[in-house]
């Protein structure tokens, strides 16, 4: 599974040129407004807007679709569980092989699916278009606590180191004839495997911390990243915010009925 979200951060696009602070702020607000949509047509509209963001960001589609596969797989059970479990008050249900399928449940599952896809696509446009450290420093400018940002930067860096470590250990286990099975022995071996990984990383973190101290670390990270916002950045922000407000106004206006009541 590829973990480097910023692999395509070098691609030139209008989203990439956007000041990361303002980009995260505006797209973040858009995401929250999508999360509270209740009607299906507006959810579709939001999905369209999210697709447009993704297109503007110029990220390759196969990069996004790879992660989308997991999310879709995660959401599919809702299409089965919701129709079966919705307490059907009206006559709107079908009988199939002795099971009662409520149409409200299906509508709700569709709404959940569309909203989740729209939010994930926007998140890709948001974090896929700047380098990870730049996004983090932008978050720091948005008043996210410094300590949290530092820990996120460390964890991100070490994720790749430990992936490599884990891969080496897995090869070593395979060479010695270990095969994953559904039994007690496999689970105990995995327990020891995780323990070894922990001990190694503990010791590595101690060495790294000493190295950091000797280079003058005093609890702060210094960065050469600077931000500058001009008018076009604020115009983009205004456009996104107007879209978010418009979406919510339409959603609450009563022009469309909530997904638990009707399709449109």
């Amino acid at each position, binding site marked *: 599974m590829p973990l480097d979200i910023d692999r395509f951060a070098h691609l030139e696009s209008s989203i990439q040129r956007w000041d990361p602070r303002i980009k995260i702020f505006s797209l973040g607000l858009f995401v929250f407004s999508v*999360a509270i949509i209740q009607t299906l047509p507006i959810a579709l509209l939001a999905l369209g807007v999210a697709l447009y963001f993704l297109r503007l960001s110029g990220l390759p589609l196969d990069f996004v679709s790879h992660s989308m596969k997991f999310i879709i797989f995660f959401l599919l059970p809702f299409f089965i569980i919701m129709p079966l479990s919705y307490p059907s008050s009206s006559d709107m249900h079908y009988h199939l092989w002795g099971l009662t399928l409520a149409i409200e449940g299906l509508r709700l599952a569709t709404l959940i699916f569309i909203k989740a896809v729209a939010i994930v696509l926007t998140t890709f446009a948001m974090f896929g278009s700047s380098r990870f450290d730049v996004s983090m420093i932008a978050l720091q400018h948005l008043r996210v606590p410094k300590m*949290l940002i530092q820990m996120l930067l460390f964890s991100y860096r070490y994720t790749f180191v430990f992936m490599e470590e884990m891969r080496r250990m897995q090869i070593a286990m395979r060479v010695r004839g270990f095969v994953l099975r559904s039994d007690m022995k496999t689970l*105990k071996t995995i327990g020891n495997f995780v*323990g*070894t990984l922990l001990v190694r990383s503990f010791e590595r973190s101690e060495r790294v911390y000493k190295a950091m101290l000797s280079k003058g670390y005093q609890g702060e990270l210094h960065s050469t990243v600077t931000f500058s916002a001009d008018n076009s950045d604020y115009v983009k922000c205004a456009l996104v915010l107007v879209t978010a407000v418009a979406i919510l106004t339409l959603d609450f206006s009563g022009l469309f009925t909530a997904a638990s009541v009707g399709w449109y």
Partner: protein
Amino acid sequence: MHISDGILSAPVLAAGFAGTVALAAITLRKMDMDEVPKVSVITSVFFVASLIHVPLGPSSVHLLLLGLVGVVLGIRAFPAIMLGVILQTILFGHGGVTVIGVNSVMLGGGGLFAYFVWQQRHRFSFKKNEAIFGALAGASGILASGIILSISLVTTGEHFFATAAYTFAAHIPVAIIEAIVVGACASFLVKVKPDALAGQRMPLVATHAAVASNEIK
């Protein structure tokens, strides 16, 4: 075992963020500078370890190891798991921005509860104390987060009642797997690197000062 965007209602999402801020403020208190790299390194270990898939009959489940975070980090398990949730959101879009709060409370709460269970080992002296309480911590971490997940679904609306029940049921096999893995891991760590365990009391040969400093950890 996390919740995705677009399911929960706005009040539940807001409660999740409020709970996360409160729990983070409590669990990050008195955190030293030297703990920053340690907690973040452990976060990435668990992040990587959660990519391990264990075959379970025809399908497979991935490890969560919430209980083990509690066993290793104590109350710092909450910030570590919260970091993991945020990182996952940024890297995969998985989970999503709006549910960072709910997911942190759900998974981090599991980690904290596991630490509470793990600490109960001082009251007993079984032959395989660490393995037993490691297993209990592993299982209770998953079950506690399953309960929090069910609560967040039920409070969103009554139409999620059955979904909540199915989801909780799905946590039970995972809890059994985690119990075995965390139990094995805890008994491994107590032999190899006991000072890596949270709230571990050193044997009596240790000096009084060393015991006192380990108590604080």
